[in-house]
């Protein structure tokens, strides 16, 4: 596509001006307020609030469950993408549409539905209870809720890449004597790895910040099943703005680091795409 300098088309000044004004008013100034508010605290107080035992327990829970859920999604999401792209079976397009449900369903509804399904008298919880397993109000329950919310990310990242992967590559590998397993692990998986990792990172970022679908199943007991977003909520409800600000700043820093990592991954993914 030809590169156009400003001037060829009208409206650059107006469009960019409007964009920057709106971006500043809605996103940048409010986020800056959070950083500004935290400077009131002073380093010592910030550190004390951000590393209190209750905060540390909530980080461990939040990051641990988000990581576990993103890992499950990395494995199963890649399989789902593979099946949707490579195999033809009855109801495939409906299954493809189902993948978007976790994006479209409001988080509060997801939370209620998952809790009801896993409750000791629920459809799945009942079966589990017969075997003496309880998942509601445990880490496992939180992880399951996060698997649900993060489900589409890996699938939707890998799918387009798998569709564009040229069959000649695999045919060449097969003709050169590679077994099917070797072809898949040495040719196909390396090609889709950057996209799969991008999806993993997106699911992780989403899982860390997730609130609505987790609060209903988490049980929310301090030190054991209290996720960081909920702890922030509790602090806010008690008008403990200093405590909420310190926690929010930690989460924001992690989110930005992940966003940066995702941008790098996507750049890698594009380079890898051109190299193959």
């Amino acid at each position: 596509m030809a590169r156009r300098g400003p001037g060829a088309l009208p409206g650059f000044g107006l469009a960019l001006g409007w964009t920057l004004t709106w971006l500043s008013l809605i996103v940048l100034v409010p986020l800056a307020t959070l950083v500004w508010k935290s400077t009131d605290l002073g380093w010592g107080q910030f550190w004390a609030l951000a590393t209190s035992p209750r905060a540390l327990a909530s980080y461990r829970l939040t990051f641990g469950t988000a990581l576990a859920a993103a890992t499950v999604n990395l494995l199963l999401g890649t399989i789902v993408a593979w099946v949707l792209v490579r195999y033809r079976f009855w109801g495939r397009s409906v299954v493809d549409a189902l993948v978007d449900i976790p994006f479209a369903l409001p988080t509060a509804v997801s939370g209620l539905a998952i809790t009801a399904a896993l409750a000791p008298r629920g459809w799945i919880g009942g079966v589990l209870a017969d075997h003496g397993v309880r998942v509601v109000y445990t880490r496992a329950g939180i992880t399951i809720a996060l698997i649900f919310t993060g489900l589409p990310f890996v699938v939707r990242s890998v799918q387009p890449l798998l569709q564009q992967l040229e069959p000649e590559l695999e045919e060449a590998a097969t003709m050169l004597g590679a077994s099917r397993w070797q072809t898949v692990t040495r040719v196909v998986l390396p090609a889709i790895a950057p996209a799969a990792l991008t999806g993993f990172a997106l699911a992780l970022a989403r899982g860390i910040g997730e609130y609505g679908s987790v609060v209903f199943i988490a049980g929310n007991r301090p030190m054991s099943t209290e996720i960081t977003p909920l702890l922030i909520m509790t602090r806010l409800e008690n008008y403990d703005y200093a405590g909420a600000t310190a926690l929010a700043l930690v989460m924001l820093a992690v989110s930005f680091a992940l966003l940066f990592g995702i941008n790098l991954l996507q750049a890698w993914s594009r380079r890898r795409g051109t190299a193959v």
Partner: protein
Amino acid sequence: MEPAARDGGVAVGGAAPSSRLVGGAAARPPSAPTEPPWVRRLLIATALGFLGLFVVVPIAVVLDQALSQGLGVYRRAVTDPAARDAIALTLEVAAIAVPLNLMFGVAAAWAIAHFRFRGRALLLTLIDLPFAVSPVISGMVFVLLFGAHGLVGPTLRAHWPGLTIIFGLPGIVLATVFVTFPFVARELIPVMEAQGAEEEEAARVLGASGWQMFWWVTLPKIRWGLLYGVILCNARAMGEFGAVSVVSGHIRGRTNTVPLHVEILYNEYNYAAAFAVASLLLGLALLTLVAKRLVERRARLGDAAPLELAPRDPDAPAARLVPTEVSP
């Protein structure tokens, strides 16, 4: 081999990570080398089992629980005055927030898709920022700004004593605009980039004013992309829970949106009513997906014309039409 279509940044929120409007969406023909039948069957069973347990069961549970006390209870829960107030508020919030993001999205996409300027890549990342932020923090920043002890809250209160932002409609709208901020822009940027601006330039040469060009050339060209962004933006605006929960104050009949109403009913152990109202949101989600599919199909079939301006190899993936390099 073409790289995957750049989707204009990252998505950590409600949108699919890559735009489904442009890019290789056509089904890939099954290739010659394939797996033995038992492996194929095992993989299909794994995928279907996973989606069945994690997606189909929750949907079915919502419907089952909503109707567990019979249709009468369902109807009462949905037509209850508090539920009706919540529905009205949710519609009102979406009716304000979505057009605001629509205008922003068109402006941002116009500037980013058609012009190269310093800081363009940074701007793309900043637009995606709200997707990376936890909903709780998205609501909290507005409390820190406009709350009773916030940065500008006390000053505003001194000048306009009647104005409530936090625990009122303005706060809910602000939080909703924040969380749905990137949707329209993210969908429009790849669409506009793929379409190019030849028609706009032709219109200008033929003497159209800037606004005439926009109304008669650009808007018709981007209508499906625009509609797609609006559908996604609207779904999130009506369903947002965490951010709105922080700023709303949960005042029944006044600052209670539908998702918050569901939570209140649930916390009151009024399960059948909670799931009945939740089933309305489930309906909205299913409707959103159907609308999304229809628009995807129309965008691919009906509006392929602007894309065809580029010389097209019928075997090439559609993503070839998307510029591969976005950073300046």
